[in-house]
């Protein structure tokens, strides 16, 4: 199962490694956005299945609102990836959950698979370890 994925992350090295991991898994990475505005532009121009969203971006802690907007208004599945999961402890409407950084290939793979299965309406019995689900 391959998907079109957008990486929203302002740390170049972290974004680059994540891109490699996703591409190794056979996914298509549409691009990397370091600000909320760049992310919106990319989503408008492309057909995006899944966005991996960091909370602290170049333009501040704009990731939470961005994630909610992408999930609720733009039809994108959203997974947060952040070093500070406490920031979204109470959950964000319209998004799936949060993955704590630093993480590894295994955790990224299972979390992305889980998100895509849910997007396609496939039954998923359990949440992958390391992924904190909302709601």
């Amino acid at each position, binding site marked *: 199962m391959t998907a079109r994925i957008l990486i929203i992350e302002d740390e170049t090295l972290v974004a680059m490694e994540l891109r490699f991991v996703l591409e190794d898994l056979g996914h298509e990475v549409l691009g990397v956005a370091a600000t909320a505005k760049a992310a919106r532009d990319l989503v408008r121009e492309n057909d995006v299945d899944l966005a991996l969203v960091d909370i602290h971006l170049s333009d501040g802690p704009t990731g939470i609102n961005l994630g909610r907007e992408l999930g609720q208004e733009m039809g994108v599945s959203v997974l947060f990836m952040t070093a500070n999961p406490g920031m979204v*402890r109470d959950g964000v409407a319209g998004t799936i959950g949060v993955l704590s950084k630093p993480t*590894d290939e295994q955790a990224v793979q299972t979390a992305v698979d889980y998100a895509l299965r849910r997007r396609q309406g496939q039954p998923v019995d359990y949440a992958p*370890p390391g992924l904190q689900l909302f709601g």
Partner: protein
Amino acid sequence: MHVPGRDRPDEDACLTHPKVECPRWDEADRLRALKQYGVLDTTPEASFDDLANLAARICETTMAAVSLVDAERQWFKAEIGLGARETPRPLSFCAHAMLADDAMIVKDALLDPRFADNALVTGAPHIRFYAGHPLKTPDGVSLGALCVLDEKPRPEGLTELQAMALKTLAEQVMTQLELRRALLERDRSQHIARLAMEASAYVGAWDWDITQNLVVADERFARMYGVDAAAAQNGAPIEVFTASVHPDDVARVHDEIERAKSGEGIFVSEYRLTSNGVVRWVLARGQVYFDRAGEAVRLPGIAVDITERKQIETDLAETARALSESETRFRVLADAMPQMVWSTLPDGFHDYYNARWYEFTGVPAGSTDGEGWNDMFHADDQQRAWGIWRHSLETGEPYEIEYRLKHHSGVYRWTLGRAVAVRDEQGEITRWFGTLTDIDELKKLEQGRELVSQELSHRIKNIFAVITALVALSARQYPEAKAFSASLRTRIAALARAHEFVRPHTETSKTTIGATTLHSFLSDLFKAYADETGTPRVRIDGDDAVFDDQAATSVALLFHELATNAAKYGALSEKGGLVDLSTARDEDRFVLTWTESGGPTVQGEPSRTGFGSSLATLSVQGQLGGRLEREWRAEGLKVIVDLPATALSRRRAANAVGN
């Protein structure tokens, strides 16, 4: 040093203490004066207890007393911490202090030849420090002293403020005694007046024929009013008599007569008479008779000399004024404090605030008496403040709280409130004294520090993510380094998790990460090893503990290595395998037992030790100062980590020892 029956008091003290001016009165005068106050052997009274208590509190001593020196003993009208109502006079410090004009300070009784052998110094209550201010009557006769005492010597003596407070409080004790004497005298004089009236010892009688305006009076009445006795016997116009009424009272007496005539019928008036330059007070009392038409026709009556009673009443007013002056001085003292000061009755009714309170809140004086103060708090703090205050009122425990108090500018400022109960001899609370300190600036600094700390923590966690990405990216070029990179990254990840649990947390930051204990940290760390239904495969039970940043890296690495190893070779490498981790606090040890089961059969101790195992051993024996034992049992590995209980939070343990 005292010989009973001697006439002059404590001549020895005059000799050994050359600064003392020997009194102008003798011991007989002194005992007579003391007797007039009628205070010896009376029951304790809150007004004196409060003063002794306040003296001890302000002078920061464990004991205080209002001591009155009788012929053979000193007797305590109030006493804090002494546990006696009287002691023999030869032991009395106050018998010395009362001879001075100002306070007598004994910084260390053991070093003072006058007191070094005193039984109150060598035995209970072990007095070492003493400060007493004489209690002198308005005539300068010493009755005793207000004193504060302590079991510890105090080379620095009293501060200027404490000395001033002791003097003010001694004056207040004296004012209370004066009030008591004035009341006693009034009672006595009223008794005499009643006896006198019964014996018809009135000044005189008159009968005024209003229609003809003729007053017929007896000789005594006439003399009092400066009227010729013969003329009075024949009758004279009332103006002849009223001419001697004091000019300030004339109009009032005239009105009172008119009121009696115009219907009230009874005439009662107290006024002054001046004759031959002497002023005397009289009480006149008469009855008006009316004719059928309702006209007043006759007013007979009697007059009594009340000059003596009036004098006592004036004295009483004077004493009351002095009392309020003395209280004014206490207020000046309280107003000089940098904090807001308040006081309540035992039931919590607020009846006093110092000037600082009104300055801070800007409310009109008196408007926050009773329960009015509650509106001064931020709405979110009111319920909490009430709860804590009610608890203190019920239990008598000291009151302490931080809340937001409304400043006169309209903003709420953080304030530290504290209060203690003042108790009488029976342990009953007589009053609560409290202070309020503005800590708003402090709070802002604290909040600022919290923001910086959060920001720093975000960045540190981000650095862990960047380092991990860098390691992964670097390893991509060297496929042979893949395994190395993976294990290094998981170790860094374990450290990153530990960081969140041990950074200093405040009330606000704590709520975003939940509990920060060892168990919650380990559950989080082992989440990655849960089975496909999310059920943990490392089961934790036993005593929980907190741990600090010094222990965090070691704990994180130890359990990361144990879990990684179990996932590769041990119980977690097979479906259905489990680990039980029990933690137990046993006096000064903290023991963690890691027991694997349901995995592949263990073939005995491995011939080669991996770096992971070395890391675990190093963490426990090097960093944490404990012991690590591995038991290679066939059913699964068992690891026992035995730590000193203090190893998990060494900083806290160090602080505890320091305290």
